């Protein structure tokens, strides 16, 4: 039993991107609880200033190896909005297709490599490969498939090069589209096996209602495009994100805290599910139901399950998209839209795997960036992570210190914060006072 706890992760160099958890409990009451990530100040914004309109998407794609398609697409959308460029429907469909596969790449990595070891009671994916090789091999096969899809469409498995402002520098061939459809179909047996494994997991029983924010669209389960929607009942055009999403600096972290209708909100797969569950394919709905995921879901730990359901959704919807693209026929004349540099401002709002991602650029009349603002999903979740910890710790205070530590780690990991933070999160020093 832990009446008094002092958990303080040793300060770790910001180079490694680790998070700090400081938890001080006296007589079972939280005296201090701070979650901070010593994230590097966002020099990327400064690096974009002065760049020509065709450069920001390539630079942005290098911000993160896991979210490179998301940053690329957010950047492209911001530029296209600012310069009034109208990409073809074919371009948008291909972007949605490549987007699905970054979501699969990232969700696979998180569900199987980072979260699953917690549930199986092994320290990391390395012992998991010994104890549950079938789980790791399913993950590798699925990630390989997603990598190959991104490579075929974007020209590279990460940091795609063909996805540019205005469209695509090169289109996949009809034969490649057919091959991709076959690759997708071959995933289903592994998804079925994963479903059986995930059903056996003991997801912690935790509930804390909060505000869930994601993009939302009338036509599909939105990842690439849509209005910004909240479970608190509002929906706004993505260009007006500043009307609702606020940022503030907190003294103890270089990362800003965000809030909208309340003092914190959550973004990510669970937020997308809570807002858009009715747009899932029937197959993905079936998986959600079998895994006990029902909207509205207020259990943060179920974010991992929502991520898996999204893998199914992305496989299903990719097949639909390929059929649609093939039916309409790939057309080189629609590969690139006309581009005329001009002054303007635009926001590119997408769903990165770990949540809402916003790029906001202002261009001058030479087509060069004058101002850039980037809001990343992990940053939006910081405040909500702290609120969750305030709810979780008192509920488990009678457990052992090791159990409390593990529960705190699992809760933070459930958010899928930027992966370098979560893999080695909490090299905790825990000292009883």
């Amino acid at each position, binding site marked *: 039993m832990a009446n008094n706890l002092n958990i303080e992760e040793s300060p770790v160099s910001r180079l490694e991107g680790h998070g700090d958890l400081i938890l001080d409990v006296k007589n079972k009451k939280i005296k201090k609880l701070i979650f901070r990530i010593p994230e590097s100040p966002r020099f*990327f914004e400064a690096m974009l200033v002065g760049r020509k309109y065709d450069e920001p998407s390539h630079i942005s794609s290098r911000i*993160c*190896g*896991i*979210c490179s398609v998301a940053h690329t697409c957010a950047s492209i959308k911001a530029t296209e909005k600012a310069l009034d460029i109208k990409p073809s429907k074919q371009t948008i469909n291909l972007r949605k297709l490549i987007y699905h596969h970054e979501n699969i790449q990232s969700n696979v990595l998180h569900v199987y490599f980072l979260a699953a070891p917690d549930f199986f009671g092994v320290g*990391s994916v390395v012992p998991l490969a010994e104890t549950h090789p079938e789980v790791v091999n399913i993950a590798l096969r699925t990630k390989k498939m997603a990598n190959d899809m991104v490579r075929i469409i974007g020209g590279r498995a*990460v940091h795609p090069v063909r996805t540019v402002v205005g469209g695509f520098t090169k289109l996949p061939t009809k034969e490649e589209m057919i091959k991709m459809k076959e690759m997708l179909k071959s995933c289903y047996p592994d998804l079925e096996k994963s479903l059986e494994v995930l059903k056996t997991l003991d997801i912690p029983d935790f509930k804390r209602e909060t505000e869930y924010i994601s993009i939302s669209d009338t036509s599909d389960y939105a990842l690439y495009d849509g209005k910004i929607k909240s479970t608190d009942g509002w929906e706004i055009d993505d260009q007006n994100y500043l009307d609702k999403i606020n940022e503030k600096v907190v003294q103890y972290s270089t990362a800003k805290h965000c809030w909208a209708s309340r003092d914190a909100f959550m973004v990510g797969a669970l937020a997308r599910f809570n807002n858009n569950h009715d747009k899932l394919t029937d197959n993905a709905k079936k998986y959600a139901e079998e895994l006990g995921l029902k909207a509205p879901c207020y259990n943060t730990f179920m974010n991992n399950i929502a991520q898996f359901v999204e893998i199914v959704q992305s496989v299903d919807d990719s097949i639909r998209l390929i059929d649609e693209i093939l039916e309409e026929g790939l057309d080189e004349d629609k590969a690139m839209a006309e581009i005329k540099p001009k002054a303007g401002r635009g926001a590119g709002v997408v769903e990165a795997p770990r949540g809402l991602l916003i790029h906001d650029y202002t261009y001058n009349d030479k087509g060069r960036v004058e101002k850039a603002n980037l809001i990343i999903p992990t940053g939006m979740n910081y405040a909500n992570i702290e609120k969750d910890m305030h709810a979780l710790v008192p509920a488990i205070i009678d457990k052992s210190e090791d159990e409390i530590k593990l529960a705190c780690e699992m809760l933070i990991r459930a958010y899928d914060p930027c992966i*370098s933070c979560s893999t080695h999160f909490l090299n905790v020093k825990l000292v009883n006072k």
Partner: protein
Amino acid sequence: MTFAGKNNSSKNVYTRTDVRIIGFGNKYRSDDGIGIRVVEELEKLDFFKNIEIIDGGTSGTDLIFLIKGCGKLIIIDAIDAGQNTGDVVNIKADDIEEFIKKDYKRFSLHDLNLSDILKLIKALKIDTNISIIGVKPKSIDFGDKLSQEIEKKIPEIISIIKKEINI
């Protein structure tokens, strides 16, 4: 600085076309981009024609896929193995076990770290012949240029890569 291997021979017989060279890192974080910058230089050289050269960016897990089907994999990255800033380490295939045990630091990877990936490769019993060439960076602040001290190490790294290929 070279890790003292028991021997420098590779485990498998391979030809030039079986060799894969992959640079990891973030080219917008100064010296962390050394792996990518070396890859860009290799692509200009006739010596490396017929050898697969890959810009791996910051996606480390994909190393698992890149290993399969190649006789020898050479990784170039920003690594702190306890050496001085700017010093180049050449961790040969026979010394990978030691590298894994020491959990040496790789910098900007937004993914599982290199040591974990190598452990996973071992756990999955994937047969490998990997060597790593690492440089300790001076700066990994945001910026699209290498520090002068690191830039001037590129010829040394290329020379080590040629010896590693050893064909």
